[in-house]
Structure formats: C-alpha cells, structure tokens
C-alpha cells in the first residue's frame, strides 16, 4: 500500500516538475489555486452585491454579500501569505497566469452553479415577467446565470 501511494506521490511530484518546473510539486500549486479560487469567489460576491446582481449572489440581502466577499478575500490573502514564506516562491509568470485563469474560471463556474441552486425557484417568477427586457449582465439582476443561458438557447432555437 505504501509503495502504491509512494509511486503516485512520485508521479505527482514528477508532473509538478515537468509541467510547472517547480520541484516543490503540487503543494504550492494547490495552495495558489485555492487562494485564487476563494479570493475570486469573494470578489464575485462583492461585485454581485455592488451591482445588485441577485442571480449570481448567494444571499438575499446585499449586506451579507459584502460581508462574505470581504471576509473571503481577506482570509484567503492572510492564509496564503501567513502559511508559508512566499519570498522564496519559484513560480514562473506563465505558470502563475495559467493557475490564476483556472482558479478564476472555477470560481465563476462554482458561483453560477451554487447561486442557481439557491435562487432558481425564488427568481423564476421574476424571469417570466422581465423576459426579454434586459440584456447583458443586467439580466442577472432577475435571473440566475444558467437560467439566462438556457433562455438564450431556447430563444435561438425558436
């Protein structure tokens, strides 16, 4: 069993070295990914609260969006920089860009999905009333992201 785990650890370390050029393997990558993921999650909630985008907010009251967003950003930054000494970071700019984009993308997809599950029923009646009146991001004031996309696809099919 130990040999099995050991060989997988070796593969993970090797992949980390090959794809990332970093001998520390996946530890830094995972920490960086979650740092970006959580802080972007907080940022999206702050944006949703500020722009009144109810469809991508996890909360019904804006004050909770501001609180959650601010806490997520501060906590993720504190955890990432306090956890280890980042002055010896050997992260290439291209690798950073890749993991930043991936972390942010995952954060957006996670937000769209969770907010859809929470707000789908609540916003459903409003969608029917405002259908077609809003365009672009303003649509997310009255509809979840996935509902808006499915409406868009249905309208295109017609």
């Amino acid at each position, binding site marked *: 069993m130990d040999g099995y785990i050991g060989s997988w650890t070796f593969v993970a370390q090797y992949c980390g070295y090959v794809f990332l050029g970093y001998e520390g393997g996946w530890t830094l990558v995972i920490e*960086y990914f979650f740092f*970006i993921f959580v*802080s*972007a999650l907080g*940022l999206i909630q*702050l*944006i949703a609260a*500020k*722009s009144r*985008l109810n469809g991508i907010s996890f909360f019904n009251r804006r004050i909770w969006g501001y609180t959650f967003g601010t806490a997520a*950003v501060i906590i993720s*930054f504190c955890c*990432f*920089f306090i956890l280890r000494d*980042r*002055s*010896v*970071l*050997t*992260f290439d*700019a291209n690798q*950073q860009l890749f993991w*930043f984009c991936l972390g*942010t993308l995952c954060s957006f997809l996670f937000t769209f999905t969770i907010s859809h599950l929470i707000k789908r029923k609540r916003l459903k009646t409003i969608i029917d009333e405002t259908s077609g009146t809003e*365009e*672009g*991001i*303003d*649509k*997310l004031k009255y509809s979840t*992201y996935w509902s*808006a*996309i499915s409406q*868009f696809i249905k309208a295109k099919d017609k």
Partner: protein
Amino acid sequence: MIHLDESIFFWINGLAGKVSPIDTLMILLAGDIFIPILLIFSLIAIWFIGHDQIRREKNQRAVLCVLLSEGIANLVIYIINHSENAYSRLRPYETYPSQVNLLMHPSADPTFPSNMAAVCFVVAFGIWTANRKLGLFLIIPCILIGFARIYVGIHYPIDIIGGIALAVVSTGAAYLLLKHLDFLPSWFIKKMRSLYLA
C-alpha cells in the same frame, strides 16, 4: 547617470535589514503575487461594475486596452531581452554581491526594464483612460511595488523608470490602436454581452 542611479539604489537598499516588520512588508509588496493579484482583481471588478450600460462599456474598453497594452509591453521586453544589441546590465546583487541587502530570491531575467513595474503601471494607466480617479488610485500600489523592488535589492531605480516609460508607451499605443480598430472591442463586448458576461 549610472552613478546617480546607483547612489539612489544604495540609499534605498541601505534601509533594508534594519527594521524586520518593514522588511517583511517590503518582501510582500515586491513579490510577484500580492500587488499583481490585487490589480488583476480590480480589472475584473471594473469589467462588471458600472451605473449603466454606457459607463460599463467604457470600463470594459479600458480593460481591453489594458490587456492589449500588457501584450505590447511584454513583447517589447522580450525583444529587448533577446536582442543581440540589448542593453544588458547585471542585477545589483550580481554587480555588488557583498554590498547589496538581497531580501528576495534572485531572478534570472535581465534587470532593465523592470517587467513587474511595466506590467503593474500598464493596469493603472489603462484604467486611467476610462476612470481618472481610480487610475490615479491604482498608481499608489504600483509606486509601492517599484519602491519595494529597489528596497529588496533586485532592481535599480532606472529599471523601474524604464518600466514606467514602457507602460506609458504601450498604453498609448494600445489606446490608439483600439481607437482605430473600434470594431474589435465593440464586437468582443457584444459577444460577451450575449453570454451575459458584459
């Protein structure tokens, strides 16, 4: 000029190693993550925030201008670094290994111009084209990162000034380019709007 540059460098770098909390703060500010991530997050926020569609579109055009400027700045730095007649100057800690207080990991890239300064100032200048107040506000962290990188011993002041000059030129070039090719940002924003992302 070089003498003055080195004098300023040693004055600033001479402050390092005296007060430990300030050293820690400067290492944080000079790093590749803290300020760059804050600047990129401000770009994402600017893309989505705006009182109305017109204001938001202006912000989105500024974000596209920043992205194009980043491309131009990085291309110019790449050409400078790989050109045969490139202006090559060793990093301060390489030229004066025993005199420089090096607080960060050494870098393999050439010292001039400062890539980090260029990348950060491009964000501030690009945003300034759409929102004067926010653009000026974003210059503060950019100045801090420039100062911090001299403090930790990895750049001369002239490298930072070179980075700022490059940021000005690349932002100007991107701004003019997008003004002449207006259909490109318009098309992109329209596509993003149809996906409810703009």
